[in-house]
């Protein structure tokens, strides 16, 4: 359950991996000029990630019943249910209904998880659905959706109405996507197994699109799962092409006036600002945004000697030390006219 969302194929040898374990920030040196507090960044990269759970608003009545049966009163939350079994919980200040939980080694083996009363997700992964801000009744596409934590967040923000098409290319990733949606009681999701590069244009237009692309996963340096950490060193080269192609396709599927959120769990400008600079045209505006209580640093408007679109600075970089989370970047892009 604490396994990272990312599935980028590992290209790391055992020795590289061993080196990575002792020096998690190896290879991250190239970002020194982008990080305001380098020692704090390195220090954060060495610490394991906190476990974060959020309560499923669609199951509020079930939480109430269990709370009442356990003598905790009807206002009890899943955090109260976990606390009364000895886990200490701390509410996130920026996101109501979500908590950091100490000592819960196997959150997937709890009654609360089985019943879909809660979901386990890396804290900063809760940001993209907030930034997308989908509304009830809309038509939304999540082009790279598995295993579906963000799909669930989007579907819930739409109050289980309208349509979310949750797509993923990889068959082995569709099973957890489906299992998560079913467990959480999500009824407004259609799951499709299509290569995003060829996603049918007739299925559009969409009011909003989340494009949470496959990436090199550097932001997972803190993930305790060996696979995720291994993947975190897999290198940034060669992914920008697929990312830009997916972005080009998604752009055609977005209605004029619609909003796209482009996100990665990696620091590399090659997979973020450079992709946006390459793939977006004049009909796109990268918009500034702020999630109160969640700190971010601005994006870059130049990299490797090249200058990039001015509005690339509106991209949000969530460095691990800013909020004690995994690393993440998020861009909110509006389509300003028909393309």
């Amino acid at each position: 359950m604490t396994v990272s969302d990312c599935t980028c194929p590992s290209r790391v040898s055992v020795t590289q991996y061993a080196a990575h374990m002792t020096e998690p920030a190896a290879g991250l040196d190239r970002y020194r000029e982008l990080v305001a507090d380098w020692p704090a960044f390195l220090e954060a990269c060495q610490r394991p990630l906190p476990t974060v759970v959020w309560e499923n608003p669609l199951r509020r009545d079930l939480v109430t019943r269990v709370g009442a049966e356990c003598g905790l009163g009807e206002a009890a939350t899943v955090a109260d249910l976990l606390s009364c079994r000895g886990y200490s919980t701390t509410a996130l200040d920026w996101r109501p209904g979500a908590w950091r939980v100490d000592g819960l080694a196997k959150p997937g083996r709890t009654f609360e998880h089985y019943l879909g009363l809660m979901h386990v997700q890396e804290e900063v992964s809760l940001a993209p659905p907030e930034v997308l801000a989908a509304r009830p009744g809309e038509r939304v596409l999540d082009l790279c959706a598995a295993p579906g934590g963000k799909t669930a967040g989007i579907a819930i923000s739409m109050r289980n109405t309208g349509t979310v098409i949750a797509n993923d290319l990889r068959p082995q990733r569709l099973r957890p996507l489906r299992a998560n949606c079913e467990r959480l009681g999500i009824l407004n999701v259609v799951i499709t197994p299509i290569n995003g590069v060829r996603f049918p244009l007739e299925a559009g237009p969409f009011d909003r699109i989340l494009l949470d692309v496959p990436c090199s996963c550097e932001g997972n340096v803190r993930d305790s799962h060996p696979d995720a950490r291994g993947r975190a060193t897999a290198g940034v080269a060669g992914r920008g092409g697929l990312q830009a192609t997916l972005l080009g396709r998604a752009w055609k599927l977005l209605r004029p006036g619609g909003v796209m959120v482009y996100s990665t769990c990696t620091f590399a400008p090659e997979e973020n600002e450079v992709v946006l600079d390459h793939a977006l045209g004049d009909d796109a505006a990268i918009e500034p945004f702020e999630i109160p209580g969640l700190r971010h640093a601005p994006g870059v408007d130049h990299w490797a000697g090249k200058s990039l679109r001015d509005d690339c600075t509106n991209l949000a970089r969530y460095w691990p030390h800013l909020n004690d989370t995994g690393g993440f970047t998020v861009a909110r892009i509006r389509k300003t006219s028909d393309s």
Partner: protein
Amino acid sequence: MSDASNFGNRSDYLQIEPEPWSSWWAEQYGTPTELFDDYSFWQRGKYTIWVAAADIQPGAVSPVDGIGIPLLRTGRDVWKPTSVAVIHFGRDVARNVVDLEADEASRFLGREAIEFENDARAVLPHRGYVIARYLGVPIGCGLWRRGGLASSVPKGRAMRDLELPRA
């Protein structure tokens, strides 16, 4: 426009009427007939009925791998609700429901059969797939067999020694 009509024609999923499925549920579990008023019903293959948001629109996309949640499997003589549907739509059931103690719930979730031999719960006139409840909430269903419940928690979801809250 090439794929636009695929969804309806080539039919991995077809939208269907709520009947007879919604009446069956109301009859089996004694729930209000309006329970499914605000949902749409879909069928994939012959035997699985899915339930989704009322206004869901797959649109021109094919193939589809899932829509909402599976509600019923109708392949056998006795229709079987899915455990995810029981948890979602089994909140206010009036019959064919059995309340379990902590140790029973734990075994049930590990797919073990629960016997009620010397137990008032065995006396009730249960039939078909009966909903198992713990702490007032539905946790799954099982086939009722003379005084006992065979757990139908799917293998992929079943867990022995699940950590349970206690009353």
